[in-house]
């Protein structure tokens, strides 16, 4: 396959992604002609869950992933609530949102400071005038930003200490709410913690108010903001993005999907569910399938909806090159993540950026940072609505037979659990994680997954291994490999 002078190169491991990742590229004429993404770790969670008491999913599934732990808990709790047909106590819904938002915002912060920005400090950029100052600020471990960011992150995660016992891996997130009622004095602590985090963001990341950042309405406004806030960490990123033309890197198929995030009492979500494919449409969960034609899994003829899905590893499966399955929506490749979430929700800045340059490295980072500005003020409101003395958790009986789905948004995109119960035990449990979508292998039509598409056409050096563009593109998705294959 490929042009006669094409060369294949294997790149990996990628660090500063959660888990293990390998990418094989084919280079022709100085560009990536094809990419094959391999998730090289298989543990077998879906096999482990079969036969268990359904409630045990609340203990087991968060341990799929130490960075999306709460998202996994909320997906499992939501699937169980669907089986039980119960609702959440209003306090429990607020507490669930606060715990989930805390994880998601902490993840956005970790991604920006610890995973993504250190690449600009690498020696490959030493010839640029901006390198020395960038390295002093963002170099892995030694940069000054990490000393500012780590205490802010740890303080902010005290929300989980109060509401969920600890992070990661909490059992506080239940189908009917949360296990930890909040005393009046704890509401004050929560408010103080969130305000402290707001101050860090406003002084260090933005040098501006969260409300001003959230109100940016188009690309021109963002450019003007960047010029006026060049010393802030987000301003520094935007300047680097211009210097390195990150808006031209890593475009995938520009189809976006979001399950919608942060439920309200009225059934509405703070960020809407839906899809974007040259226009928005309502989400049809039955249109989700997984194809395993290029996975190291026992073959099934047709792509299947997760309720009909199965997971049986086969390291010698013909055509396989990854443990990852290939999720498709209406048979097509969709990208998930903060950019997809904000595009589907219709945020004016993101709609404008996507209209201009589609999904790309710069826009994915902008959307993630924008969410910090949009969500933290809402967290303050949620705390204000907690009512001490009123219930945090409702209870229901688990039927012996039934099925249910839990569809949530993790920091890095759409996460779904599909659970079937027979004779009071788990008959089938299928999980489709954000990076399963983004880093999927090819499907039966040989259509590459989102990252595979995003890498295609990227200019590379002779052997591809020193090309930092590849590192930026991969990390722009904020991949979580331990979720991808579980």
């Amino acid at each position, binding site marked *: 396959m490929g042009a006669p002078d094409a060369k294949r190169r294997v790149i990996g491991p990628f660090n500063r992604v959660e888990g293990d990742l390998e990418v094989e590229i084919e280079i022709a004429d100085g560009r990536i002609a094809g990419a094959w993404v391999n998730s090289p770790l298989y543990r077998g969670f879906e096999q482990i869950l079969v036969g268990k008491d359904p409630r045990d999913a609340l203990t*087991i599934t968060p341990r799929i992933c*130490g*960075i999306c732990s709460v998202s996994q808990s909320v997906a499992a709790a939501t699937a169980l609530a669907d089986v039980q047909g119960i609702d959440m106590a209003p306090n429990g819904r607020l507490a669930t949102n606060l715990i989930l938002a805390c994880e998601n915002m902490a993840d956005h912060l970790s991604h920006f400071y610890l995973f993504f920005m250190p690449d600009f400090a690498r020696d490959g950029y030493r010839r640029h005038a901006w390198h020395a100052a960038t390295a002093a600020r963002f170099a892995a471990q030694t940069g000054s930003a990490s000393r500012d960011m780590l205490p802010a992150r*740890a303080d902010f995660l005290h929300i989980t200490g109060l509401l969920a016992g600890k992070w990661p891996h*909490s059992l506080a997130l239940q189908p009917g709410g949360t296990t930890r009622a909040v005393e009046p004095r704890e509401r004050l602590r929560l408010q103080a913690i969130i305000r402290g985090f707001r101050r860090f963001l406003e002084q260090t990341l933005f040098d501006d108010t969260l409300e001003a950042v959230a109100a940016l309405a188009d690309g021109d406004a963002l450019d003007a903001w960047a010029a006026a806030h060049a010393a802030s960490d987000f301003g520094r990123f935007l300047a680097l993005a211009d210097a390195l033309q990150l808006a031209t890197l890593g475009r995938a198929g520009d189809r976006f999907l979001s399950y919608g995030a942060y439920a309200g009492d009225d059934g509405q979500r703070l960020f809407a569910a839906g899809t974007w494919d040259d226009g928005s449409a309502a989400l049809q969960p039955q249109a989700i399938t997984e194809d395993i034609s290029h996975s190291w899994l026992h073959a099934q003829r047709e792509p299947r909806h997760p309720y009909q899905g199965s997971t049986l590893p086969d390291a010698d499966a013909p055509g396989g090159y990854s443990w990852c399955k290939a999720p498709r929506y209406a048979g097509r490749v969709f990208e998930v993540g903060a950019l997809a979430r904000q595009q589907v929700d219709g945020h004016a800045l993101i709609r404008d950026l996507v209209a201009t340059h589609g999904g790309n490295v710069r826009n994915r980072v902008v959307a993630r940072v924008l969410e910090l500005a949009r969500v933290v003020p809402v967290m303050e409101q949620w705390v204000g609505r907690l009512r001490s003395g009123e219930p945090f958790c409702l209870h229901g009986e688990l039927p012996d037979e039934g099925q249910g789905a839990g569809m949530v948004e993790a920091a890095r995109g759409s996460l779904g659990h599909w659970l079937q119960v027979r004779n009071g035990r788990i008959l089938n449990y299928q999980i489709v994680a954000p990076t399963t979508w983004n880093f999927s292998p090819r499907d039966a039509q040989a259509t590459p997954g989102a990252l595979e598409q995003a890498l295609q056409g990227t200019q590379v050096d002779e052997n591809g291994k020193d090309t930092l563009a590849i590192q930026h593109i991969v990390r722009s998705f904020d991949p979580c490999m331990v979720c991808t294959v579980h």
Partner: protein
Amino acid sequence: MSERFSVLWLQSGGCGGCSMSLLNAESPDLYTTLELAGIELLWHPSLSEASNDDFIALLDRIRRGEQALDALCLEGSVMRGPNGSGRFHMLAGTGRPMMEWIRDLAEKARYTLAIGTCAAYGGIPMASENPGEACGLQYEGGNAGGLLNARWLSPGGLPVVNVAGCPTHPDWVTDTLMQLAMGELSEAELDELRRPRSYTNHLVHHGCTRNEFYEFKASAEQASDQGCMMEHLGCLGTQAHADCNRRPWNGEGSCIRGGFACINCTAPAFEEPGHPFTETPKIAGIPIGLPTDMPKAWFVALASLSKAATPQRLRDNAVADHIVVPPNTDRRKGGK
């Protein structure tokens, strides 16, 4: 000693949660704690700059003995499947099973640490039929001998140090690395399961905020109740070795403070309790598990005595999610 204590951190069949927890280190933050202890993170999958060939070259230098390594930390289970091939985790970019890399590097590092219960004993991936053929570094569940045999000692003369927990507390990791860097961790500092006694000489029960409910056997009946979770909700705090309630998590948290049961995650085979995690198994209405070191007859006798003496305040509060009856402030009145 002017040389810095070097640490190489690898991940295999785990979730990365022990690394995420490590970043929660406070007072001072993780990087400051390590730096001031003279500890250098040679490489960590979430935190280092180097990737691809630079990293593989580092592993090769250590494997060939060209670069000294003080501590190898493994997070996650060793994945031996399918059929012992190790193909369930090939280290990216190397075409080689991770378990082989781990075995090679453990022979070179002065000390090898299992970070978290997965790396120590196998942990969650060993649940059910253990589809990944997972095991720990030097244990398979509660049985000594994992990837490395039961009598294996590192070049520094210690067995694998099991910093167990799911996840581990950040201080458990930094304390253990500091002890090693200062030359203060001997085998006597490890318990029978080779966990650092710095945190396993305590039970989770110590400092439990529900102690008054425990004393009077005023039990929680469902999730979010404030009472003791031992009788009905599967809490193993009286048996679990860890200082979670003396040294809280994320500020002022712990599992029990968060309103849910301790599942004894620092122990081998915690992943297969033989009953639902949040339900206490009982025979004739009496919980099967006993508090550590407690004779059964005495426990039963004391439990029935204290149940008879339970103040109404505790009975009411135990099955509510907030204080419905505050403690009496009038000294002349006794309990009801």
